[in-house]
């Protein structure tokens, strides 16, 4: 249920290397824990974030949670479709439900993130 080619964080964000940019979203495990997503607050494009910065907010019926920058970088695009259809986070967490795109990322931080096997283990140990 977790795509093979992504990197993962302990806060359940995923990071995808698209060549020119890195795409960030939350895993279906995180979406499942949140329940029905009702609102997403996205960062401003152009913002420079450090690893672990609060970059976005995701609200569900139950609660509000922060989405952290998995790695440092510059935000070059945000998924404005989530403003009208936040439910995309539940319906399509790895495709249409992405949050933002990063450039100029810190590649050392990227390499240190969990791969799918490590993330799968991490989720299994933390349920």
């Amino acid at each position, binding site marked *: 249920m977790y795509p093979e080619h992504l990197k993962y964080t302990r806060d359940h964000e995923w990071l995808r290397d698209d060549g020119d940019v890195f795409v960030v979203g939350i895993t279906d495990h995180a979406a499942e824990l949140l329940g*029905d997503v*009702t609102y997403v607050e996205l960062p401003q494009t152009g913002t420079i974030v450090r690893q672990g910065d609060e970059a976005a907010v995701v609200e569900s019926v139950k609660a509000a949670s922060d989405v952290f920058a998995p790695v440092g970088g510059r935000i070059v695009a945000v998924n404005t479709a989530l403003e009208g259809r936040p439910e995309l986070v539940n319906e399509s967490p790895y495709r249409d439900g992405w949050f933002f795109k990063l450039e100029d990322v810190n590649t050392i931080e990227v390499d240190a993130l969990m791969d799918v096997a490590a993330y799968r283990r991490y989720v299994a140990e933390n349920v």
Partner: protein
Amino acid sequence: MRHTPLSEWHEKNGGKMVDFHGWALPLQFRGIIQEHLHTRGAVSLFDCSHMGEFLIQGAESIRLFDRLVFCDVLGLPVGRARYGSILNERGGIVDDVVVMRVAEDELLVSTNAVTQEKVANYIAANVPGACNASKTTAKIDVQGPMSGHAMRRLGLDAIDPLQYYTCCKTHWRDTPITISRAGYTGELGYECFVPNDLAEPLWDSLLEWEQVRPAGLGARDTLRLEMGYTLYGQDVDESRTTLEAGMGRFIHWGRDFVGRDALCLRGEKRDYPFRTGIRSKSRQAPRAGQEVQWKGEVVGVVTSGTYGPSVGCGIGMAYLPHQLAVPGMELMVGPRAIPVETAQLPFYRHGTCRC
């Protein structure tokens, strides 16, 4: 954890189980929003067996119980139900209850789960003949505009004459049960009080109609909040008087009841915060415990907040000073300063409960 007669059913049928004040209950089945909308449009079942039930029998016990609640119980006609609260001497809310006069000499009192032990002791101390039927009684709420048909399909025609906040005793499968036309959703609905071993057969039989679906605590909360109904332990408790909670209109003043004198004193001063609806300008929701700010000053606290699926925005309730407890005041909520405005309750005005 305590189990209702239906806890096992919920677990087997996809319920996402949570610990609700020590009870194993489903937060949701398919999803809170789906269940919410299904209740507004069709009919949902809610397992409320964790709630308390007390039987008060005989004229003397009824007279003693009448003194414990702010609404008139002695004058309650047979077959009618009334919302009320049990107050302490300071006017604080010990529990909110629904009192049903199921017979001339018998009351059925429905109470909250979280207060059960406290209320059981309080009632036992003040009404010696009262019977605590909580452990042997299951409660199934059938809620939604199609709930009448769902009940009639099971031969429960006794609901036909029931108006909003009325009740009756009837039989199902040769077993006596009590049904009230009430609920916590704002929709047409029925509350079925049945012996534990009848809970699963009744639940299963109701679900045989494809329009009927199970719903969890999550949808129950969003539905009640859209209606501006309070949740005990969150919006009201012993530290809040019934006047602060905005329940003054339910009080029958021309009689003696515990807490009356304290309320009379407070009522004259009107120096207390007042439970007020707040509506977000977006889908961002206020959340319980967040501070409310007005012109940069903290003026109150949010007691309940969520996204309202049928109103399409964040909604909540907060205790605010009198001058701000009027519709249309612009406020900020929480650390991210979500803009909200005070709003008249209920938020949702198309409910079918009185139809």
